[in-house]
């Protein structure tokens, strides 16, 4: 039988800030976007929506920078979810040239 006194105490993890959960933020962001979609599409198509995923608050701007600026006024330290309204986002072809999945589209 194991001697209780010989058990090693479980060490407490140090308090460190959480690393942003990239997949979690995207998943939650898309879920919230689906909830608000009917309110903002198609009237705001082409603009950007920035979502704070914990409070589910969202901010709309004509540009990504504008929408993020509005969100950061209220949530300066949060990592936000950013999406273009009504459209998919593609990456610049100059960035894409390095990406294997782009396979010479351009």
């Amino acid at each position, binding site marked *: 039988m194991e001697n209780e006194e010989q058990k090693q105490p479980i060490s407490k993890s140090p308090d460190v800030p959480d690393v942003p959960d990239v997949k979690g933020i995207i998943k939650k962001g898309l879920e919230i976007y689906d909830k608000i979609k009917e309110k903002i599409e198609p009237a705001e198509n082409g603009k950007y929506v920035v979502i704070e995923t914990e409070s589910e608050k969202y901010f709309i701007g004509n540009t990504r*920078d504008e929408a993020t600026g509005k969100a950061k006024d209220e949530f300066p330290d949060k990592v936000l*979810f*950013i999406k273009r309204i009504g459209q998919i986002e593609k990456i610049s072809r100059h960035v894409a040239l*390095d*990406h294997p999945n782009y396979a010479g589209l351009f």
Partner: protein
Amino acid sequence: MLGYFDQKDGNPKIVISIKGTRRISKQIPALFDTGHTGSLSLPIIDLVEIGAKLSGIGQVTLADGNTKPQLYFSVKVMIDNIEKEVEAALIENPEAKEAIAGLELFAPYLAIIDFNNKILRFVKSKDEKTK
């Protein structure tokens, strides 16, 4: 405000100054890409050197239909002696040396491109001048 045509690759570029959470600012060449949605994409090396802070996460769609996360970082950009805060997209390729500047970065300006003489200039639009 003058840009230039790079003699090495013939592409139109402009030198911009960027700053993150560290006090140092860094001057880098940025390719002027009219097909770039958004204001700025930066190589990972530059983002790390200036201590840029992660501000947002998005999702981009690739040509094959797959999606991947896109990270955005808060960066202060100095153009024409005017500082503005932008959300710079990360260029993941560690060998990338050049920033990519999109239309949003130059929104108040008119871009004049003389392809014959290889001149790139940005001038303030009439609306901005009268403000």
